[in-house]
């Protein structure tokens, strides 16, 4: 547009700006509408997919996990409510609810032994033993999802990572970094000693003993003075499997 001097020119410029702004808004709206339409199409196709593969989703943990990932990408949460399309179609809400109840049960039952911290692998193994008669297989991924739903209910269940392993915490105990490092060391043999901690983490004796004392008080550790070398060992039930046979350590 040709620039014109004077008031007329200014008015024109303002009018053009308005027009550009309107155009800009329109374009944005068109884009949003297009996206919404694409998303709706995608969701519909996802629903079709779920209908067709209902059995696979139910029976196959790996498939189920992939399905969940797809849903997340689209912003669909099949577990969000127990009513509605997803829950009714797949009955998935019930599956995870039931899993959650069984997980709580197992955590309570093993708490006297491990202090409220259990290895995810062991939890799944105990879960599978319990569900032997059920046709639906259970994966660690399923366990994690069920636990995240428990979290929403405010049960205090949480999954923490220690080294290569995941531990499920069912008590309010907070573990600090020092505790975490000890648990990580413990994963190798199921126990740790003060000299080992001093050597591998370069801690003072006092720092090591403080950390051990807290872990003992919380019921997460047990002492063992029975080895012939006379060195006190601190064992952590949460990193060993109750059902795995333990041989003598050298």
């Amino acid at each position: 547009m040709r620039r014109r001097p004077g008031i007329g020119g200014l008015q024109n410029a303002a009018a053009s700006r308005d027009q550009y702004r309107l155009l800009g808004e329109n374009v944005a709206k068109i884009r949003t509408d297009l996206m919404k339409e694409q998303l709706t199409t995608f969701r519909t196709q996802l629903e079709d997919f779920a209908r067709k593969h209902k059995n696979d989703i139910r029976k196959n943990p790996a498939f189920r996990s992939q399905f969940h990932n797809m849903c997340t990408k689209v912003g669909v949460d099949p577990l969000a409510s127990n009513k509605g399309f997803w829950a009714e179609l797949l009955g998935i809400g019930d599956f995870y609810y039931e899993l959650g109840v069984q997980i709580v049960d197992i955590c309570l039952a093993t708490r006297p032994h491990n202090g409220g911290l259990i290895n995810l692998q062991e939890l799944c193994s105990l879960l599978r033993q319990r569900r032997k008669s059920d046709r639906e297989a259970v994966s660690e991924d399923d366990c994690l999802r069920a636990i995240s739903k428990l979290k929403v209910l405010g049960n205090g269940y949480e999954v923490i990572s220690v080294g290569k392993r995941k531990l499920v915490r069912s008590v309010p105990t907070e573990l600090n970094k020092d505790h975490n490092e000890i648990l990580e060391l413990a994963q190798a043999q199921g126990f740790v000693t003060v000299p080992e901690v001093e050597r591998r983490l370069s801690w003072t004796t006092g720092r090591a003993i403080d950390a051990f004392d807290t872990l003992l008080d919380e019921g997460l550790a047990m002492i063992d003075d029975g080895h012939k070398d006379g060195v006190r060992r601190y064992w952590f039930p949460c990193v060993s499997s109750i059902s795995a046979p333990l041989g003598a350590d050298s």
Partner: protein
Amino acid sequence: MQKLGDFKLPQFFNYPPYFTLQPVRDTREKQIQLWKDLILDYCKTHHIFVIGLEDQDFPLFSNPAIERSLTYEAREAFLSALVAQGRAEWLDKSRRKCLVLWHRIQDWANIVLDFVKDNGLEDSVMTVEEIRTGIESRGTELHGIDRTVLMRALKMLEQKGKLAIFKGTTADDEGVKFSI
């Protein structure tokens, strides 16, 4: 699962720390409970009545597979807990020997009553040894029962008027007249 003969040992028996008396109260209480149950269970299965704390051969005191043994302190703690619960008694002041009541005396008394009824002995006379080792007792829990325990049960029944204990012909045997 590890076994001692036919007896199935619980998982905790293979976990080294359980052989050390735990310092933290809650943990120790759980530990004691586990050991109490194991001791009672084992004694009941094997008909063991007396445990000597210094007995190196008592199978529950050590687990060679994990190279751990209970300290004297631990053994005493677990047995003391059984005593406090009324499921055991110290036989001596120095607490070296412990009588394990995997059946309480009251239970033994009832078992004697059942034994008498089952064998039609309501008005008869028997020696204490016969009750313990006679033909009728075979196959019952009474067979081979510790004599001290049996006498206690019999005395309890005597106080209830179910029988009378009297001295026998030999110096060391006593007899029982049932009047059930």
